[in-house]
């Protein structure tokens, strides 16, 4: 089984160059049944990564390009009168797919954003009093530009909380970038990608991730991390228990991805910045961009017993 995961990582690495750790985190996020938020400047490969993951996992995926005039119905679908049968027919929107790529989510108005985010939370869509379950598995990979760009509606904290991880791609290193520049077009590369996993395999992997063993010592460590964030004055607000659960879930998937059946402090440390940075605010933070530094500070301050 870990062979399949390794292959996944290797294949992805062929398209997104020099970003193995980000790819691993993204895969871990999906193994942990979490939604993923990719935040970076335009043109570093956000959309490519989302596309790539959908292809590799062999999931049915649809892409929604978020714009400021996007309406909720454009996401979840709407009922249209059927003149032949004299009734309303529900036409499902793009959200009814196994993987939804929500591109530039912070370009849309909060109204449109919340339509997607509700679907993420409830795993179902309700239109005119009728609930329609979303397909399983259901992943959302959203991308967004940094919040301080003009013409964006930053996601509120409570909605950020629904993403298990927030990743940043960053610029590629020199070697990878040279390779990228000289190589084939990414879009045509994506076309050639074959799925590496069956649906059942994915479900099995998710089950295995859940079963990763948590020892009392690792729970202590996790709790100390949470407690530190609550007691230290540098943190505006401490991490919530939900953040703690998210941390453990991601770390378990990371452990599985690393071929382990038990959770090590290193696993928690590996996923911690991606998992908690978007949930943290510094006491004296106005830009909302200090989460990553805080996460690093948290990591370095809590001793592994």
């Amino acid at each position: 089984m870990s062979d399949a995961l390794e292959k996944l990582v290797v294949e992805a690495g062929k398209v997104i160059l020099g970003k193995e750790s980000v790819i691993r985190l993204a895969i871990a996020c999906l193994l942990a049944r979490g939604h993923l938020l990719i935040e970076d400047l335009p043109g570093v490969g956000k959309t490519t990564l989302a596309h790539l993951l959908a292809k590799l996992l062999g999931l049915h995926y649809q892409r929604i390009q978020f714009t400021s005039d996007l309406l909720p119905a454009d996401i979840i679908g709407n009922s249209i009168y059927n003149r032949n049968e004299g009734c309303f027919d529900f036409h499902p929107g793009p959200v009814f797919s196994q993987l939804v790529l929500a591109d530039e989510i912070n370009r849309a108005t909060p109204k449109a954003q919340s339509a997607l985010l509700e679907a993420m939370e409830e795993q179902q869509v309700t239109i005119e009093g009728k609930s329609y379950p979303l397909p399983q598995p259901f992943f959302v990979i959203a991308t967004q530009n940094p919040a301080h760009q003009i013409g964006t509606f930053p996601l509120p904290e409570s909605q950020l909380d629904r993403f298990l991880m927030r990743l940043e791609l960053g610029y590629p290193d020199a070697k990878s970038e040279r390779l990228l520049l000289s190589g084939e077009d990414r879009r045509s590369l994506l076309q050639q990608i074959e799925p590496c996993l069956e649906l059942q395999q994915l479900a099995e992997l998710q089950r295995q991730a859940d079963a990763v063993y948590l020892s009392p010592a690792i729970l202590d460590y996790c709790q100390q991390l949470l407690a530190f964030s609550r007691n230290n004055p540098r943190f505006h607000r401490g991490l919530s228990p939900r953040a703690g659960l998210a941390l453990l879930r991601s770390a378990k998937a990371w452990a599985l991805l690393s071929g382990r059946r038990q959770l090590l402090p290193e696993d928690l440390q590996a996923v911690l910045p991606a998992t908690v940075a978007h949930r943290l605010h510094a006491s004296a933070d106005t830009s909302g961009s200090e989460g990553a530094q805080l996460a690093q500070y948290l990591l370095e301050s809590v001793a592994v017993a």
Partner: protein
Amino acid sequence: MKRPAQLLLSGAWQYVLLLLLGLAVLPHLFNIERGITLFFLALLLYRALAVSRPGLIPARLPLFLLTLGGVANVLLHYPILFGREAGVALLVSMLALKLVEMRVRRDVYILVFIGYFVLITQFLYNEAGWLVLYVAALVILLTALLVDSQRVKSRFNPLPSLATSGLMLLQAIPVTIALFLFFPRFNSPLWYLGSERSQAVTGISGEISPGSISGLSRSSEVAFRVDFGAATPPAAQRYWRGPVFWDTDGSSWSAARESADERGPPPVLTASETAEPLSYHVTMEPSSERWIYALELPLLTPPGARLTADFQLLRNSAPERRLRYRMRSLTDYHTGALTSHERERGLRLPDNITPRMVELVQSWRRSSRSDAELVLNALDHFRRQEFYYTLYPPLLGENPADQFLFESRRGFCEHYATSFTLLMRIAGIPTRLVGGYQGGEINPLGDYLIVRQSDAHAWVEIWLPESGWQRVDPTAAVAPERIERPLDPASIADVIGAPIRFIELDAGLFSDLLRRLRWGADALNASWHRWVLGYSRERQHYLMRLLGLGFLHGPKLGYAMIVITGLTVAAVALILLRRNRERPDPVLRHYRAFCRRLARLGIERVPSEGPKAFADRVIAQRPDLTASVAAISGLYIGIRYGRLDNAKNRARFTLLVRRFRP
């Protein structure tokens, strides 16, 4: 956001603080000059007004002037700032000034601490049991206020703080008891300032004149308490002998200022075969005179006192503090022969003997064959004639004895005793006047005898060849009840002029209850004095001997206390520290040892570094250690983070770490 220390208390708590500080100062208001009292009360009241009108709190300049005024006020009343009163006055004034200045919570803390200090100074004036309870109650309340002032919330709910404060006081009790028992005792309190205690203490003085004892009889203050080990002698035998009066100027009698040649050994008492001496303990209240009291006649001389030829027990100095002594007395005795000096003094008459007094004595002499019969005749005279025993005798003039015998015929014991003494001396019988206390009230709650100032009495001793010095109590001839029953000062107020009423022992439920309450209070007070204030250096030494620590006394005990206290505090601190630190798992301990050994090689584990990351780093730096480091780290991870935590693996891990000697 303001910190709690920068906020003032809520209005309700401010009133409570003002009330508590007022109560803390209250007993002092009678101890210091009225000017200081007024200053304090005025500022307290002003601050109470300012609670709801913060604008009234004065600014810096008025406050400065007010402070100057306060200091001037103290200096005005106590020009030399020295001594107890001046100190207390200064303290109370400063408390008042700080009250006015109270703006932030920090001022509240200071005020509470000044309050504690004021409470302590109460003991400079009084050591009574009730004051201890009063002070303890105020300490609990002030501490509760202090506890509450640490809370941020502003709702007025004193109960939790009171509980905390009470608990703190309870926790302090064992420490208090230990310090009380073992801290080196001083024979006088640390704060004892010398001469200040010699204020007027009521009691029998060195001079008896008509009216001096009846004045005392209105005071229910305790003179002394007596513990009889076995049976208490009957009231009629309980004559507590004090000063002996030989000399009179015709109206007042003064206690013998004996000359140096009289300071011989006390006369030898001869007792009949059957006479059994009585043993008892006397706890005497402070007195301004040097006499200490014993049943007639004393056989022992307590330390610091001596027995004179006329059986007075005289201390070298007046007992300024409560005094407890053991005593033995012989009630059946013969004092032996009369010295010529005694005969001369016992017959000396003042100038103002009137012919009708001489006539009266001669009439008795004519009708009696012996001195003893004459005494009986004289007592009979008092009994048969219209003599009244009253607490409020009419004022008598130049010659009180004559006036009393022939005109007013109303008097208290001193009238009877002084006149009787003169009459006996006219008859040629050596006679002396004795002052002291008669009777006393048995407190069934503590099984001891309370002798009050109202039991003050005067009687007469005559010398007869067949019996030596013998007590005669002319008052008993008039009002035998006086000897049988105690005088009740509570019933006096409404009977001015009327013959004295005595306590009816079965006088209704209420007075019975009242008496029981008084007994209870006195028993408490007596035990307080006996067990707490009376815990002297000697008793402490005795206790230490009982505990087998007799070698610890004086400064040694002090050093021992310092060492023991230091050790105890250190031990408690250690226990508290330990309790907060859980004992690490042995696996963790061994792993730390492993890390320490690697640190010696220069590969130090960062505290936040996980075991696998560390192992990878070590192996990268020291490939030669790969096998052992990988084995140890792998096992550690398995035990601590995996499912391999069993005894076998733990033992193996311990072994591996022990063998790891890079």
